[in-house]
């Protein structure tokens, strides 16, 4: 039941933003439509999971920290790629490596994969069948060990803190 409330409040807020006016009637329309939308897609939303509102509120500072880290990393990533693009002769050593991940939760794996794609020089291609590793294409794999370490120590820490 709590899950219903959380998702429909989120969908109501989304409705307000898409409609272009934030006010109570709009939010209520979004809320009701949200409930109708969640109903047929029940399996996707994991309705029966137990959560508490306190848990979610305590998580907000960590999410803020994660998103600020993400924005800084995206800007860094663009500058790195822009530099490579503007080199007179493109000198890169790309390749695909397997990077182990420590979690098996869907949400965390998705978040880690998306974060990796948005950070400098790396792009997630697939997750292994047993969910223990991600396959990552990197623009520079001249040192695979260092790349694995940097992903595990920097990115994963933030994501696990924010989503687990």
């Amino acid at each position, binding site marked *: 039941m709590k899950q219903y409330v959380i998702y429909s409040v989120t969908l109501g807020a989304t409705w307000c*933003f898409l409609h272009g006016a934030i006010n109570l009637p709009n939010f209520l329309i979004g809320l009701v439509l949200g409930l109708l939308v969640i109903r047929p897609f029940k399996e996707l939303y994991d309705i029966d999971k137990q959560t508490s509102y306190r848990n979610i509120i305590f998580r907000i500072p960590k999410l803020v920290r994660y998103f600020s880290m993400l924005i800084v990393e995206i800007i860094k990533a663009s500058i790195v790629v*822009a530099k490579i693009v503007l080199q007179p002769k493109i000198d*890169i050593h790309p390749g695909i490596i397997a990077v182990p991940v420590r979690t098996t939760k869907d949400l965390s794996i998705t978040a880690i994969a998306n974060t990796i794609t948005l950070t400098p020089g790396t792009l997630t291609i697939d997750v292994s069948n047993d969910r223990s590793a991600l396959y990552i294409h990197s623009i520079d794999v001249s040192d695979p060990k260092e790349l694995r370490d940097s992903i595990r120590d920097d990115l994963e820490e933030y994501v696990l803190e924010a989503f687990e």
Partner: protein
Amino acid sequence: MSTLTTAIDAISMFFFLIGIAFVFLGMIGLLRLPDVYNRLHATTKIGTVGAFSVMIGIVLKVGLSAMGLKAITVGLFLLLTAPIAAHMIARAAHRHGVGLCDESIMDDYGKTYK
């Protein structure tokens, strides 16, 4: 009052320019980099930053009006969907046998699904 509006206008113009410059660089990358996977690097990362700063420019220009709110939503959705699109394209390309470019050093993924 008018100084403030001018300042905000100037900042939004600055964001527009940054955004357009980054999208331009992304397109150069799309043309210059060797294979599908490297090209995806250029379009996802640079494209996200470019489009996002254009959206920030719009928000600063029109404020939190209908257009500004939609720009925020578009920016957030872009942040969420650009990596997923890149991931799907790369995965499909690899499974269809699109090889890595000659400069590539290693391919851990190739052995896993054949």
